[in-house]
């Protein structure tokens, strides 16, 4: 395959190299690509915002649902944030967004993060095989001790007979964090490999 003759690929290749260059040294090409990125991202956000306002707001007004004018007023009020005197008007729509965002996530969090996790913990420790039992016990100790590590206002948890629990908890947490760290390494390389493929395949045509 020959080197690409598509200007799009050439521009993209330039930006790929420019964005990488920062890892080696701060330089003007990186700054150029960074500013391109910030501008493009903000522009893209506006385009998507207007499209959504048309499809999810204006469409309702066209159907005669006049109450949707309220949300347009609220939407405009967001931009009073930059006004010297009437900045507080933006608090109305923000309050709506925060109330909705908070309500919609915490109502289920108590189920998914708390009750379901206790149910999962309150299972028999014995398994089908000796190895399963061993695993169940490790998991059980992990859950209990990790939880105890994050209890801060009950002194008895960290001193005396129970004092071993948070200590073991910290070790268990660090072991688990190690797995996360190992995976983070994979994330970054897995991501960059995609750019290498782009440069060698789509741009230079060296590999198929």
């Amino acid at each position, binding site marked *: 395959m020959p080197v690409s003759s598509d200007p799009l690929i050439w521009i993209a290749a330039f930006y790929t190299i420019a964005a990488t260059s*920062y890892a080696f040294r*701060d330089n003007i090409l*990186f700054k150029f690509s*960074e500013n391109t990125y*910030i501008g493009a991202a903000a522009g893209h956000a506006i385009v998507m915002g207007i499209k959504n306002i048309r499809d999810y707001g204006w469409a309702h007004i066209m159907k005669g649902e006049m109450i949707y004018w309220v949300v347009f007023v609220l939407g405009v009020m967001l931009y009073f944030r930059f006004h010297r005197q009437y900045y507080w008007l933006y608090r109305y729509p*923000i309050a709506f967004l925060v109330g909705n965002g908070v309500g919609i996530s*915490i*109502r289920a969090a*108590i*189920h998914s993060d*708390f*009750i379901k*996790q*206790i*149910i999962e*913990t*309150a*299972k*028999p*420790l*014995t398994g089908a095989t000796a190895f399963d039992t061993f695993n169940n016990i490790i998991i*059980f100790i992990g*859950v*209990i001790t990790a*939880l*105890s*590590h*994050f*209890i*801060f*206002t*009950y*002194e008895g948890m*960290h001193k005396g007979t129970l004092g071993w629990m948070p200590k073991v908890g*910290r070790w268990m*947490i*660090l072991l688990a*964090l*190690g797995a*996360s*760290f190992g995976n*983070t390494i994979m994330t970054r390389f897995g991501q960059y490999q995609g750019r290498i493929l782009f440069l060698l395949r789509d741009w230079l045509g060296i590999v198929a």
Partner: protein
Amino acid sequence: MAILTEGRLVPLVAFILAWIATYLAIQLGKQGKIRIRRIPGLDAIEEVVGRAVEMGRPVFDIIGMGSFTSIYATQTVAGLSILSYVATLCARLGAKLYAPQADVGVMPVAIELVRDAYRSEGKLEELDVDEQLPYLSGTQFAWAGGIIGMAARMKPAGNIMIGPFWAESMMFAESFNRAGSMQVGGTARMYQIPFFAAVCDYVLIGEEIFAAGAYVSGDPLQIGSIASQDWYKLVALILGIIGALLATANVPVIQNLLSM
């Protein structure tokens, strides 16, 4: 027709109790009835400042790029509480503090807290806000670049990073390490904790930063909400232990009860 959605009884009860617990714990906190544990991470912070005094080099305290309006606001608040504590230590012991800023909304609060700390130690004249709490940039890589430059120039003795952090933490940790700084890191952003744990001399894991912030600030609101969370964690712990033991003895009563 049933009023409650099916299978949601236990979550609802837990939810309402959480509501009550939060309110109650904050009231108890206001009355000073809740004591919070001093976590070892604070000793590490003191060590950093002490080391800086010995070496005659500055201390950095980075609170991250968080703002008061994002969902990471509580982490920023914890970072600010620690900043105030570090500023007090620096003023008292005579170490020079640098705390570069990235958010225009948070910056005035940070300046005020540091000023108060220096004032209460009677060292206000030693503080130069423009030099020590400069605004670098609100853009991730520009902000990271600015701090990397400062670290390379000043060779700080210590670096304390507590607050919400993103990918830039990796750049900070590397540059301060190269500058020979002792580092204490802490964040509740789960994806960045492993990295702090790997490179810092001491790490505050997740909610430890809230506990540390509440401890040093003595703010009843923060202490109270930590207490209410503790009650829930205790419940989870106890139900987990009892439930597992009962289930092992073939009595899965806790499981059945919670599935209601």
